[in-house]
């Protein structure tokens, strides 16, 4: 994939031009060229960085964040047969869920789109996730990071419970924990033993990327 094509892909995504994005990635997919597919992923991730920045600065809104994420997801689906030929996923695995008692999922899903587009394999446990289900998934998938979403104060007490259970099962040390959502603050998150709090999905993705690369 040429620099020009990468730029075209990025621009199409930033114009929310789904047909334009899919046209470029479909062409890449038919070549079955792993290097080109990786460059396409790079272009998509680059565009999403810009989307995230625009969102953080209040220039873009949630619908644009969601829709660009959806376009990126479809593009990644087209590219994944080529990328899956690789034995190792580029960035590692992340497990994520919304804590028990809380059914809010929009923020979690946006984070999933961003993390997936940044090259992570994401295991989505859904909403209303119990302590046991979080621990079971961590034991099974051995992720780089566990992401917990929480928008409700009544549910926030579930986060230290999840962390405590991971400590008891002896897997806390080998794992980074990141949390986000309206009910949380950085202070609370660190106090209850998380490694990081993310005010938004873009920051969250940057943090897990840094963790994954630092490993």
């Amino acid at each position, binding site marked *: 994939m040429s620099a020009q094509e990468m730029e075209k892909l990025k621009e199409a995504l930033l114009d929310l031009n789904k047909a334009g994005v899919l046209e470029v990635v479909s062409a890449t997919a038919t070549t079955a060229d792993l290097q080109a597919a990786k460059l396409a992923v790079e272009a998509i991730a680059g565009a999403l960085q810009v989307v995230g920045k625009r969102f953080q600065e209040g220039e873009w*809104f949630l619908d644009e964040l969601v829709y660009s994420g959806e376009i990126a997801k479809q593009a990644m689906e087209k590219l994944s047969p080529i990328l899956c030929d690789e034995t190792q996923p580029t960035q590692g695995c992340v497990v994520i869920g919304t804590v028990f008692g809380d059914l809010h999922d929009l923020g979690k899903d946006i984070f999933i789109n961003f993390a997936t587009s940044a090259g992570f394999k994401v295991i989505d446990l859904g909403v209303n996730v119990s302590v046991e289900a979080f621990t079971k998934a961590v034991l099974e998938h051995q992720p780089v990071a566990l992401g917990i979403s929480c928008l409700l104060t009544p549910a926030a007490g579930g986060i230290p419970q999840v962390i405590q259970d991971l400590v008891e099962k002896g897997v806390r040390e080998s794992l980074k924990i990141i949390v986000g959502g*309206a009910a949380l603050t950085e202070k609370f998150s660190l106090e209850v033993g998380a490694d990081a709090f993310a005010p938004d999905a873009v920051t969250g993705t940057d943090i897990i990327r840094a963790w994954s690369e630092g490993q």
Partner: protein
Amino acid sequence: MNFKERILTTLNHEEPDQIPVMGLIMDPSTVSQVTGKSATNIVNFLDKPVLGKVAKGLVNTNWFWNRMYYGNFALAMESSIQLGFDANWSIYALMKLYEDPASTLGTAMHDAYGRVWEMGTNDRGDLSVDYSRALCPTEAEWEAWVDAKAPLFDQLVKNATGFHKKLADKYSHRIMPIGYAAPGIFENSWQAIGFVNFTKLVYENPEFVKRVVAFQTDLYLRYLEGVMDSGVEVVLGGDDLGQKTGPLMRPALIDKFFGESYRRVAELVHSRGRKFIFHSCGKIYQFLDMFIDWGFDGIITMEPTADMDLARVREQVGHKLALVGNLDVSHLLVRGSHKEVDQAVRDAIRAAGPGGGYILSAAHSHPYVDATRLQWMVEAAHEHGRYPLQG
């Protein structure tokens, strides 16, 4: 002044005798804390072999559903009176129980609009019923749903009218019932389809979205008529347009798809001589001028955790909108100290009380909103909220 005069005076942006206080009481946990009585928790029955079957059958009958719903809200009204509120909201919903393998209990509520509501028991043993999924993610599914559910929509309007009337008849001499017509047009439009799908459709199939909005607008106007037929004098409409950091959708898009509908809502309410107050969570500064333009009389929520500052809102809208709410439900009304609650009430009154046009209330309700803190809030309002306000 009695509670009703107090509310109506302040909504006219005149100073009443004291700052009115409104309860947003509906959660069984808060109710049981005040009254000592628990609301009917049907989840407890559903698991039992014989009783469960009977309970499921009963819940799906119109009379039992209405009775249970009314019973829960009657307790909420009693709690609000006991805590000394001038007003409390009342909301009706019509749901049916279905076998639903995708839900945690294997059984879930489906509402008339096409939402799934998960039932559960929170850690205090109280019933919780919360929106979890959309039943109509595609255009075809949505069309089929609204075709099939026509009788249910009629039932919904009829039941809601009866529910609000019964509450108004029973309680309006002791407290002002505020008829909450919720969820609103935006939420009824997206929640049956799902936010992500709905957003995609806004970009890819706007004609369908317009059809959905037109349908929901007509239904909502019928629903509002019903709420007003009950005799309530102030109507709340509910639609969350914001999230923690800003609008849920670009404001210009909201205006394009929903602006005309909201204008019709305000016109209808005004044509019946009533006030329309709009509930929206989240950070919504960018909608305030639209609210004025659409004809709303006031807004409720102003969530502090989403950076909504009462003084800033008042500065932006002046006395073109009455303001209701703003007391934090993340910390203050959950575990805040007496001193913190007292100070927050004083700050709110100082920011929005002068000239009338402010009703003190929590920013929202959830099961951990603590009755003792609500009591402190009311007491502080009585202590610091006498007009003419001091300093």
